């Protein structure tokens, strides 16, 4: 049963702390996305990678957010320092390219106090 795996599922932290979220894409998928869900904006695209190379990170606040793919089985999203406005659910999704359906993970709920 292939699926996208995200950790942690829930994270509560204090303002100023570093937060790292991890994603294991589906084996064989070469495109990985990070989305953030907020009430006002819905699902916002933060960044995406193809074959581990970043293609677009224009949706990401560059001063505090960073996204990487150390290898084909791991994508990370880091926030340093975290702020209360970063509180949201962060989703990772993966897909094959050429174009194929996006498969989402269950999300990481982040609360920054």
């Amino acid at each position, binding site marked *: 049963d292939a699926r*996208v795996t995200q950790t942690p599922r829930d994270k509560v932290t204090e303002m100023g702390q570093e937060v790292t979220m991890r994603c294991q894409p589906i084996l064989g998928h070469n495109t990985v996305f990070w989305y953030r869900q907020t009430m*006002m904006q*819905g699902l916002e695209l933060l960044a*995406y990678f193809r074959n581990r190379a970043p293609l677009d990170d224009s949706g990401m606040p560059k001063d505090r957010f960073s996204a990487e793919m150390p290898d084909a089985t791991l994508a990370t999203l880091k926030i340093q320092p975290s702020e209360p406005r970063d509180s949201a659910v962060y989703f990772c999704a993966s897909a094959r390219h050429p*174009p*194929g359906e996006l498969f*989402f993970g269950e999300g990481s709920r982040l609360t920054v106090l």
Partner: protein
Amino acid sequence: DQQVKQNSPSLSVQEGRISILNCDYTNSMFDYFLWYKKYPAEGPTFLISISSIKDKNEDGRFTVFLNKSAKHLSLHIVPSQPGDSAVYFCAAATFQGAQKLVFGQGTRLTINP
């Protein structure tokens, strides 16, 4: 700048009746549209899509209609069932960047018995 808008945050429909969810977009370059469904504590899952060369696509109880001149699409669910209660996200992309989906804010659909 919200390129994809779902103006109804919530919708309540009686079981067995038709549910109609609406979505508007502003970017005329979009030519591929999708609907995703999301249950609590789960990631969004793909439901149905339509390309701009069509004005209707049907899959069982779900039909998506596209009105390119009005930049509007809608999802019809008939008959509605309690298991359809979820948040529905409209998404759009260009074929060139077919996997770079731009999502709306979502509409929470509740089906009442």
